[in-house]
């Protein structure tokens, strides 16, 4: 019962933040004094915030499906998935006066994964970097090879990951959401979703602690299918 209640509280916390922001955005709209451009900016921000919240809800709902179904893995272009996530989150990074840089090798191998699930994992890592790092900070999204696996890593320059979380991630997955106490407003739900999704894909997530931030990564199996372009 405790775990169930805890899960509900965590989900409630993570959904509260965007709703709080949307409320303030709506209240701040002054149709008499604001210019058309200002109203349009506020409207765009409202839409973007609500879409991020809806995405979080969808990711949560899909967790339940993952428990029941077998996930079919296929060759996925990791570069394409990373580009999509970068494209989607660049406005959020810009709004928060932050930057997301990408480091890809010249030839990125295919990986054996589920495209949507993989996208969610990388999205959650990048979203953490967008939300929980200092202003003007630079985060990097990298693809590299590590011990025969293909690693996607997101390095951020925010509060260092608490030791307890790092230890929990060493197992490769989280049993339950863990609050990231130094990252305000974070219930750890994103990391929990990323860990469960990775488990479903037989991938492994992990983290590296730095003095000035953290690196979150997911290790994927390369696809044995030959690329058409070789």
């Amino acid at each position, binding site marked *: 019962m405790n775990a169930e209640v805890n899960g509900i509280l965590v989900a409630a*916390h993570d959904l*509260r*933040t965007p*709703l*709080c*922001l949307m*409320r*303030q*955005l709506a*209240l*701040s709209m*002054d149709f008499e*004094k604001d210019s058309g451009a200002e109203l349009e900016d506020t409207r765009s*921000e409202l839409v973007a*915030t609500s879409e991020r919240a809806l995405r979080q809800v969808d990711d949560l709902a899909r967790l339940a499906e993952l428990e029941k179904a077998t996930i079919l893995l296929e060759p996925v272009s990791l570069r394409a998935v990373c580009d999509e996530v970068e494209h989607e989150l660049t406005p959020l990074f810009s*709004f*928060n*006066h932050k930057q997301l840089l990408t480091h890809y090798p010249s030839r990125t191998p295919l990986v054996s994964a589920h495209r949507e699930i993989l996208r969610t994992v990388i999205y959650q890592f990048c979203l953490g970097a967008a939300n*929980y*790092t*200092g*202003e003007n900070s630079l985060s990097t999204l990298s693809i590299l090879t590590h011990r025969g696996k293909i690693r996607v890593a997101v390095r951020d320059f*925010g*509060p260092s990951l608490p030791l307890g979380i790092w230890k929990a991630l060493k197992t490769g997955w989280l049993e339950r959401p863990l609050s990231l106490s*130094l*990252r*305000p*407003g974070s219930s750890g739900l994103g990391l929990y979703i990323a860990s469960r999704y990775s488990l479903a894909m037989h991938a492994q997530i992990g983290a590296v602690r730095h003095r000035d931030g953290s690196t979150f990564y997911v290790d994927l199996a390369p696809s044995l299918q030959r690329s058409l372009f070789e």
Partner: protein
Amino acid sequence: MILIVMSDLALAKIIRKNCQKITSELICIDNDPFSAIEFIDFAKPPKLIFLQALLIGTNAFSFLDELRSHAELLSVPVILLNDLMSLKHLTPVELADYNLSAILNLDQITPDEIRKIVRETCRNSRKKHQKTA
């Protein structure tokens, strides 16, 4: 100067927008509490600080401990913007030590309340300056 120290930049910008409608004071936003303290050290004491309870790498009370440790910053009005952080672990006496002008819940605060607080604070600050002069 009005200083807004919040981890949530989007909300900070909304509060700034509301303040700008009624005051010509310079309004600065900092989402890093450590650099905010450094900024206060070098600049004139702000007339008002909006402070979010949960900050990057720390919380509002660590920030307030640092702020109130300086004699000239003891009287700077601070509005605490509380999110989900529970304040139950603090007794009324302990809260009083932080000399907070108000504790507002982020999910309930309205633009009118923000403007009212800014207006009152700027008015009180002008009266204080007139007395000392």
